[in-house]
C-alpha cells in the first residue's frame, strides 16, 4: 500500500519477473537471525547474491536498480544480511582489480586509526580490507578469521597480500557504501510505516480505530511523508549511480542528500512509529523494533547523518551540482556572481 503511493524507485527499470522473485524470496525468509542462512543460500542459488558483479565473481551484470530493489526488500524483511556491501562495495572494489575473486559474502572494512570495528554478520566469509599505506590506499581480500585475529592481536599477519588501490576507487567505495545504507534505511522505514498504518487502522481505542483520531493522523501522515521523501532522495541517488556510478563528483552530492534525508527521516519514523503502536511495539515479541532498530543503526553506519548535513553544505558552498535544480542563484546581475551554467 505504502509502496504504491511513494515516489518512483525506478522500479520500472527492473524486470517485473525479477521484482516478483526478489519479493517472494525475501518475504519467505523474513525475520533475520537464523533465517539469514537459508536466505543467503537461496540468493546464491538464484544468482541474486552478486547482482551487479562481474562474471568472474559469479555476478549477473545487473545495475544499481536491481541491486537496490534487492537491498530494500531485504531491509523490509528485517534481514541484516550484508548483500549490498558484498556486491556493490567489496565485490565492486575487487572487480576493479585484475585478480581472481572467489564468490563469497563479504563486507568492506576501512582499517584506519579512526575505524570502528567491522560489523561482522555471522555469515560473512571474507572481508575486503582497505587501509592507507605510505604509498597510498591498499586493499586485501582476506578470510574473516584473519580480521578477527587482527582485532585480537593488533596487527596483520605477514602472509596477507596487499595490493595498491587507486585513491578514486577508495573514495568511491565510501560513497557507494553510504548509498547502500540509505537504501536499507528506506526499506526499514517502509516496513515500519506499513506496520503503523495496519495497527492504527485496526486497533480500536475509545470505540474507534486509532486512525480516526486527528492527533494520531498527524503522526501517521508525517511519518509516511518522511518515508516517501527519503525514498525520493535515495531513488534519485540510485538513478545517478546507474548512469554515473564511477563519477565521484556527480555521485557524492546525490548520496549526501540521500543520507541526510534518510538519517533525519529515520528519527521521525522511529519515534512516531513507536508512539502510534504504543507499549506493545516496544516488546521483543513485536516486529516493529526490528525495523526501527535497524534503521537507526544503518543511518549511523558508513557515515552518519550530521556529517551528511555538513557535507551537503560544504558541497553547496563549493558550487557542486546536486541535481538539475540549482538552489544557488545569482542575487544580483553581476557577471562575477553568475555560477556555472
Amino acid at each position: 500500500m505504502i509502496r504504491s503511493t511513494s515516489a518512483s524507485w525506478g522500479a520500472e527499470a527492473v524486470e517485473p519477473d525479477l521484482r516478483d522473485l526478489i519479493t517472494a524470496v525475501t518475504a519467505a525468509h523474513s525475520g533475520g537471525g537464523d533465517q539469514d542462512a537459508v536466505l543467503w543460500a537461496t540468493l546464491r542459488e538464484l544468482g541474486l547474491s552478486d547482482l551487479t558483479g562481474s562474471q568472474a565473481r559469479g555476478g549477473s551484470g545487473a545495475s544499481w536498480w536491481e541491486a537496490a530493489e534487492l537491498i530494500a526488500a531485504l531491509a523490509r524483511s528485517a534481514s541484516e544480511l550484508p548483500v549490498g556491501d558484498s556486491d556493490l562495495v567489496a565485490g565492486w572494489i575487487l572487480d576493479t582489480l585484475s585478480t581472481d575473486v572467489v564468490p563469497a559474502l563479504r563486507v568492506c572494512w576501512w582499517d584506519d586509526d579512526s575505524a570502528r570495528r567491522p560489523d561482522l554478520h555471522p555469515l560473512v566469509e571474507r572481508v575486503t580490507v582497505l587501509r592507507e599505506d605510505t604509498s597510498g590506499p591498499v586493499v586485501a581480500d582476506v578470510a574473516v578469521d584473519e580480521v578477527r585475529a587482527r582485532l585480537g592481536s593488533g596487527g596483520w599477519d605477514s602472509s596477507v597480500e596487499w595490493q595498491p588501490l587507486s585513491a578514486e576507487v577508495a573514495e568511491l567505495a565510501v560513497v557507494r557504501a553510504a548509498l547502500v545504507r540509505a537504501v536499507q534505511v528506506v526499506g526499514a522505514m517502509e516496513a515500519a510505516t506499513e506496520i503503523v498504518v495496519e495497527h492504527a487502522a485496526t486497533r480500536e481505542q475509545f470505540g474507534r480505530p486509532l486512525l480516526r483520531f486527528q492527533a494520531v493522523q498527524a503522526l501517521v501522515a508525517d511519518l509516511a511523508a518522511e518515508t516517501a521523501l527519503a525514498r525520493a532522495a535515495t531513488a534519485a541517488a540510485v538513478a545517478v549511480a546507474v548512469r554515473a556510478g564511477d563519477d565521484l563528483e556527480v555521485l557524492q552530492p546525490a548520496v549526501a542528500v540521500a543520507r541526510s534525508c534518510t538519517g533525519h527521516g529515520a528519527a521521525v519514523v522511529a519515534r512516531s512509529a513507536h508512539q502510534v503502536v504504543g507499549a506493545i511495539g516496544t516488546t521483543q515479541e513485536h516486529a516493529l523494533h526490528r525495523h526501527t532498530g535497524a534503521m537507526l543503526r544503518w543511518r549511523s553506519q558508513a557515515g552518519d547523518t550530521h556529517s551528511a548535513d555538513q557535507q551537503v553544505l560544504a558541497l553547496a558552498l563549493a558550487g557542486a551540482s546536486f541535481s538539475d535544480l540549482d538552489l544557488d542563484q545569482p542575487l544580483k546581475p553581476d557577471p562575477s556572481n553568475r555560477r556555472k551554467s
Partner: protein
Amino acid sequence: MTTTAHPGIDERALLELRGEVRDFIADQLSRGTFTPRPDAWLTAWSADFSRAMAERGWVGMTLPPEYGGAGRSFLERFVVTEEVLVAGAPVAAHWVSDRQAGPSLLRFGSEELKRELLPRIAAGRCFFAIGMSEPDAGSDLASVRTKATACDDGWVLSGTKVWTTGAHRADHMIVLARTSGRHGDRHQGLSQFIVALDALGIRVSPIVSMNGDHHFNEVLLDDVHVPSGRLLGTEGEGWRQVTSELAFERSGPERFLSVALLVSHLLAAVRRGALSPTAELGRLVARLQALHHMSFAVARTLDAGSPADVPAAMVKTLGTTTEGDLVELAALLTACSTRHDDDLDAALRIATAQLPGFTLRGGTNEILRGIITKGLQP
C-alpha cells in the same frame, strides 16, 4: 549521461529548456526588470514580466497550439516553474491563469469559452483570480453560500468571496457557487463560473496583510449577471471539477521553493564570512533537493494521467514545513551575525511576513494530513 533514469522522458530536452529559462532570467535581471524576492509567485505582480514569458511560450505552455498554447508537457512546465521560483521572479500576474484557469478551461470549458480565453491566457493578456473561500467557509470549502440563480439569459450571482489573491488586478475570477440545493448539501449542487471582474455589481476591497501589503481581497458579488456561456463545465459538477485539479495545485514547486532565495542569500553570507557554516543549512538544502525529486515524480504521474492525491499532499506538508524551517534558520543566523546585509534582511522580512501562509494556502496541513492518512488506509 547516456542512460536515462526515467524511460520515456527526454531529460536532455528538459535540461535545454532549463538553460533557456536561466538565460532569460539572467537577461531580465541584467536589464533590471525585477528584484528577486521571496514568495514572488504570490506577491510580485508584473504584467510586463508575464508578457515577456508569454512571448517565449512559457505561459499556458501546456495548452494545445490550436488554443494559442505551446503544447508542452507538464514536466516542461515544471522545469519553467522551478526556475522562475528559485530566481524569485515576479510571476504572480499569470500564476493563477497558468496553473489553474488554463487547465480547468481546457478540461471543462465549452469550445466557445476556450477559443475566447485560452489564447489570451497564453499571450499573458488575461489574468485570473480564484473565488473559492468565503467568510464562513475557510478550510470547509464545500460549505459555500454564494448563490447562482438562473435567469433568462444566464445566472445571477450573489455572495462574498475572500482571500482572492490579485482580484484587484485580475481580469476574471473563477467562482464556485451553489446552483441548486441548500447550504449544507455539501458537495452537491455546486457549479463554477467565469466572472469578469469589471462586471456590474462587483466590489473588490483589500484584505491587508499584517505587514501592510495588499495581495488578498474580499470580493462582494451583488446580483452580478453572468451570461449562460460563462458556466464552466457542467452545472452541479463544480465540486468534482475543483477537486480533480487539486493535485496540480498542491504538488507544484511553489510548495517548497517560495523562500528558496534565502538559501542563495545564506550561502553567499557564509562564503564572505558573515555567517558561520551550520549543518542545519545542509539539512535544508538536502530536503529541498529531495522535494524537487518528489515533486517531479508527482508531475510525472499527473502527466501520465494517473491520480497522485496522496503524494501531492505529502509534497505540500513536507515542502511548506521545510520553507518554515528555512525562514527560522535565516532568522536565527542573521540575528547573531555581526555583519549586516540589507538584501538578506529585506528578503527575511518578506519571508517572515509570508511564513504563516505557507502551511495555510491551498489546503492547510491539517486538512492534508487527513487526506494522507485516508489514502494510506488498507
